[in-house]
């Protein structure tokens, strides 16, 4: 009996050893060129920086949730003791009392963002398609111009843009913001770089089957670049949502939501709570959109490099 068990134990031990040898990894570390202590040190460093990065945002959100007496408490607390949504409801009351209704501001922003983004997606994709998949005189040169234009949009061109829009008679209309947004260089750039990774054989096969360029574009290319769609939409929405457009639009009823909200922000100390609520409302939209489309954006950005 006892002999048997020792034998069994021995057998088990040998087996275990065999298994261990079998499982012994060929390369000891998961990644070459890494030290464990370095991994830990850099991890701690990264965590520290992450806390610093996120602190102002957390603070803004928590101030928006603080009741009035806690807002002016000293020393301040990071997290509210009695969280409330009063600031947000106050914000709606204030907006409701303004001469132009809240829904009108919201409509303006949504209209500008929706039309601008849709047009941008369509027009930029059309241009990107031929730039990526066909060779024609002037194509490369044009793309180079777009690449350089990514750098100085907005700052250098704002004065002549004002003059041009003035001459076109678009001052104080939505078009002053929407039409220039159609041609945002960033969108065309990212779309073209992403479309280049699409196999040319796909397009050629469709052509042999008798598809026109338009059919190729709408039926084959566009469905295959969905991640890039999302990216274009997000960058465009971010740009348009945050656009205060204060230089182009002066009628109160055509102003954007962000502009109106930031007017409230300037309302002094009595509106501290509401101002914090405004911060949260303004920043939550782009951040949420990003969170939900992160993987698609990263997929697009992987082809964002500028090659010579």
């Amino acid at each position: 009996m006892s002999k048997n068990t020792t034998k069994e134990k021995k057998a088990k031990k040998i087996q275990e050893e065999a298994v261990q040898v079998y499982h012994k990894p060929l390369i000891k570390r998961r990644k070459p060129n890494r030290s464990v202590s370095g991994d830990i040190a850099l991890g701690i460093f990264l965590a520290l920086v992450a806390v610093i990065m996120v602190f102002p945002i957390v603070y803004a959100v928590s101030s928006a949730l603080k009741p009035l007496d806690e807002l002016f408490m000293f020393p301040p607390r990071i997290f509210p003791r009695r969280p409330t949504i009063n600031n947000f409801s106050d914000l709606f009351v204030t907006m409701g009392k303004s001469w132009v209704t809240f829904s009108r501001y919201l409509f303006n922003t949504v209209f500008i963002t929706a039309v601008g983004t849709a047009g941008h997606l369509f027009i930029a994709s059309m241009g990107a398609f031929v730039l990526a998949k066909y060779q024609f005189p002037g194509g490369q040169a044009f793309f180079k111009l777009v690449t350089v234009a990514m750098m100085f949009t907005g700052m250098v061109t704002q004065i002549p843009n004002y003059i041009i829009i003035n001459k076109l008679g678009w001052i104080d209309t939505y078009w002053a913001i929407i039409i220039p947004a159609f041609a945002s260089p960033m969108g065309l750039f990212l779309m073209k770089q992403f479309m280049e990774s699409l196999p040319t054989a796909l397009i050629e096969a469709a052509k042999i089957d008798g598809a026109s360029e338009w059919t190729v574009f709408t039926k084959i290319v566009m469905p295959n670049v969905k991640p890039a769609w999302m990216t274009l939409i997000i960058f465009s929405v971010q740009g348009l949502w945050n656009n205060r457009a204060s230089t182009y639009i002066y009628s109160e009823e055509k102003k954007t939501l962000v502009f109106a909200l930031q007017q409230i922000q300037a309302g002094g100390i009595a509106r501290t709570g509401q101002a914090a609520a405004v911060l949260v409302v303004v920043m939550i939209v782009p951040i949420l959109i990003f969170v939900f489309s992160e993987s698609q954006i990263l997929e697009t950005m992987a082809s964002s490099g500028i090659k010579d």
Partner: protein
Amino acid sequence: MANENAATKSKVSPADMSFFQKLVMMRRHNAKVALKKMKTSRNCYLFLAPYAIIFTVFFIFPVVASIFFSFTYYNLLESPKFIGLNNYISLLLEDEIFLIGIKNTLIIALVTGPLGYIMSFFFAWLINELPRWVRSVAIVVFYAPSIAGNCFVIFSVFFRGDAYGYVNAFLMNIGIIDNPVLWLTDPKWMLPICMLVILWMSLGTGFLSFVAGLQSVDPSLFEAGCIDGVKNRWQELWFITLPSMKPMLMFGAVMAITQAFGVFDVTFQLCGYPSTDYAARTIVTHVYDYGFSRFEMGYACAIATILFLLMILSYKLIEALLNRVGE
């Protein structure tokens, strides 16, 4: 006469032609080929046309117009009057506020540009090694400040000038300072605070590009490097990762230039407009001041043109620098 000439020319064999004649012939031939290509790719132009037209009107033409208007006096009401180099002369020799602006912009650009660029890459590189879900969270955390609208105004609460400002209170409590510092109204402190805020927001589109680019670097390169004698992560970074990231690095550089030279919102909202002693004035603030407060469009265009030249110059510089990475 001309026809005769052309006829005799075409009969001459290429060997007898002078260099110039050959050049002309080649050019003509190339032009013909290009024209034919253009005709066959008519559809391409049709596809590109809507974008190209809007892009030209709102992005290319304004740059040209800006250079043109910079030589004129133009106030939107009267037609532009040509005044030669006068705008530039008064900008560089008489306008002291502009010199403050250009100095501030250069300081901000030289500090936050490279630093923000390196930070973007460095954090993207560190994040890249994290497990998948931690990585997604980390990307959101690092990227959020740059898309958080004007969330940065919260810094004006931290850096308030009285003893109740958090930074002041903290520093007074631990005894580093005795009196509250007027962070956002004292010319000495405005720029550093603004740069701090800009750095906080500097992990933007370039950062995303780096994160995505790092994930697509071929992992077998690292193993090959390990065998070839790469000893630690820093050597790996310099010899393998950076060279295979060059296109993304160039894209990131474009984003960094935009952000470093275009500083406006942060100084505008944190330090006020105009700021004390113009200590937080930047080139873009100056453009805004002359363009939309005083409506001296010609003068504003001259400032914008200088900004444009600065950006193109730094773009070329970075392009040259990046070509030497990993050598």
